[in-house]
């Protein structure tokens, strides 16, 4: 989920590397080569050194090529490759968005009856299923968002992780008053504005708009973004403003991470996917979830289905690809995945033990909480403009200027009315 900024040059060189690596492997003939398309370039080492050898050892005659594309360019590059019939055999599926388009265009094959699919809940399948709930991808990982906090700073200032919004503001205020540390690090540079949505509004909002019900009401057009529950969510996010780093509008994702890692910021709003970078073993770091308004209220926790795997309908090796997907459904794979990529949680129903304590702490945030998916992902995220690009920009403007939560909600409603049919003025 972490979107790395990549230069055009890098994208070009990637597109050069991918075909040559294909040529190189197919020249050895004989074994079936399966290429996996992915945007998780960060995970290349784990795939190449652990997962692929695991599978290749158990399945002689199959060769797997891991072919990642930078995240921001994945959707467009993959669409072009699929159109040109040069896409890989196995495709890493985005939740909703592009995957729904691929399903509509019959670029993925339906996975009905794939052995092992019974290991997953229907909820975890819905982000890559068609309108009739036919699954097209094997769910492989979910992520969550929340706050890391520096335990040493909390100890120094005699603070405890907050549970309610009032406590949260009190903690931030205390850190600000002390003056030694930035209270809350987040990414405010426009290029990383996706972070303010996924680790901002979607983190604090579900409590106010009551989880999936609020998302559906917006999708159906029965509620407007200017209704009180959404405005309250925007306001909760806007309440961070006084505590963000100095010159927030230029702080990009890496800057925010660095501020926290260097101990200059007390709290960092982040995702579970960066456990390895933010909380390496030995770092005194804790984690807490989105604050609620009243003590005793049930918290909502955002579980974002991050990626799954599907089979390209243009692939000549569909049988072998399906067999690989069957392996992705097994406990063996889920267990290796959970420990190899801490912070990415398997969606499998199997009992998986997680070695990384920090990753386990993230998973514990889900205990006793109401699990919800982000809003705007299902129906509003296809086409241009779409919910993702619109909300990113609106939140970036809200947090870097004097705009209030109510004004930001009004901006969103105005935009939705101009392009999203169910929200159009009747």
């Amino acid at each position, binding site marked *: 989920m972490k*979107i790395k*900024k990549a*230069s*055009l*040059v890098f994208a070009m060189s990637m597109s050069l590397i991918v075909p040559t690596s294909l040529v190189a492997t197919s020249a050895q003939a004989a074994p079936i080569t399966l290429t996996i398309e992915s945007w998780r370039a960060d995970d290349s080492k784990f795939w190449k050194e652990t997962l692929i050898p695991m599978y290749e050892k158990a399945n002689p005659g199959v060769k797997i090529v891991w072919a990642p594309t930078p995240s*921001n*360019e994945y*959707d*467009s*590059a993959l*669409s*072009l490759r699929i159109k040109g019939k040069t896409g890989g055999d196995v495709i890493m599926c985005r939740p909703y*968005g*592009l995957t729904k*388009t691929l399903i509509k265009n019959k670029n993925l094959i339906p996975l009905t009856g794939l052995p092992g699919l019974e290991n997953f809940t229907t909820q975890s399948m819905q982000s890559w299923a068609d309108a009739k709930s036919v699954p097209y991808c094997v769910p492989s990982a979910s992520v969550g968002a929340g706050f890391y906090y520096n335990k040493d700073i909390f100890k120094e200032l005699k603070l405890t992780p907050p549970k309610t919004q009032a406590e949260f503001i009190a903690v931030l205020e205390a850190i600000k008053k002390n003056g030694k540390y930035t209270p809350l690090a987040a990414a*405010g*540079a*426009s*290029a990383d*504005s*996706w972070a303010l949505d996924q680790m901002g509004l979607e983190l604090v909002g579900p409590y106010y708009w009551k989880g999936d019900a609020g998302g559906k009401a917006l999708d159906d057009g029965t509620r407007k973004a200017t209704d009180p529950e959404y405005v309250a969510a925007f306001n909760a996010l806007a309440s961070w403003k006084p505590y963000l*780093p*100095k*010159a*927030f*509008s*230029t*702080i990009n994702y890496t*800057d925010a991470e660095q*501020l926290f890692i260097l101990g200059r910021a007390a709290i960092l709003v982040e995702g579970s996917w960066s456990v390895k970078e933010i909380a390496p073993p030995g770092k005194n770091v804790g984690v807490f979830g989105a604050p609620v308004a009243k003590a005793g209220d049930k918290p909502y926790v955002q579980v974002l289905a991050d990626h799954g795997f599907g089979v390209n309908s243009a692939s000549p090796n569909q049988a072998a690809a399906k067999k690989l997907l069957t392996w992705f459904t097994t406990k063996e794979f889920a267990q290796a995945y959970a420990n190899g990529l801490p912070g990415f949680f398997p969606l499998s129903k199997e009992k998986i033990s997680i070695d990384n304590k920090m990753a386990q702490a993230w998973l514990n945030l889900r205990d006793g909480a109401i699990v919800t998916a982000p809003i705007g992902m299902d129906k509003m*995220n*296809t*086409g*241009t*403009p*779409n*919910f*993702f*690009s619109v909300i*990113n*920009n609106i939140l*970036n*403007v809200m947090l*870097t200027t004097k705009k209030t939560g109510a004004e930001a909600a009004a901006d969103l409603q105005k*935009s939705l009315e*101009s*392009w999203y049919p169910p929200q159009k003025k009747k």
Partner: protein
Amino acid sequence: MRSKASTRKRHRQLVLFTAPALAFFLIFAVFPLLGTIYISFFQETVFVGLKNFKFLFTDENASTRLLYAFLHNCEFFLIAASVQLPLALCMAALLTSGRVRRMTGFYRTLLFIPSTLSVVIVGFIWRLIISPLWGIVDYPLLGEKATALPTITLMSVWQYLGIPLVFLYSALLSIPSNIIEAARVDGASDMRILFRIKIPLIAPQIGIITILTFIWTFNGFDIIYALNGGMPGPDYSTDVLGTLFYRTFFGWGADQGNQNLGAATATIIFFIILIGTAVYFATVQRRLKVSQL
């Protein structure tokens, strides 16, 4: 007198020698250009006439983006031209004035070095220098809507200053020294010589540099993309035609690309540059040549 046969031979030679360049130009410039215009009339494989253009000019969201991208490009051009040209002229005048003596070559090289760097590096270095967090400027230059585009433009000006500088430098060197000497004998000061003799003499070069800056800024893309990605903010304030085209054609984030709409955008950019350049050559540049000595 030249015979008919030898004229024909000369013609044949002419065709032979220009053929490689002509073929190269046709294959890699004219053909893709016509291809782009051709696919801008389609949607997937269906011929839709001018519908793509109609959409870009009339759709509420698309037309706003197009208009702002155009205005930002104008700003980009005006700042680049009004800063880069006078600066390059000053430096070229200094280099040719004889004041720097034997250091001319050194300064010329020094000023040209940034042009040889990669934009990605230039963007990265400048971002760090002006970062309020790690750098020396205590103001979010890149994060404010009002200052973001001028800041990026100035980075670009800094990088490419060497190119107009070298143009003007060689133009100044080619001014016959007897004219300068005559003026000096008449008692003209250095400043007067610069403004009344040297600059009027190199006016055509200044014109060419202006129009090259126009083409270069309206095709601008790289430094903005390197710094701000395909949806350049804050709040689209650094979005130019180049990044708009990239986003429309290839997509960005959750925005999926549309090749036909992208081709229509590229066609619009092409015509903006074509018309701008044509108008300039038809009016200004021709007059400049007439006034030459």
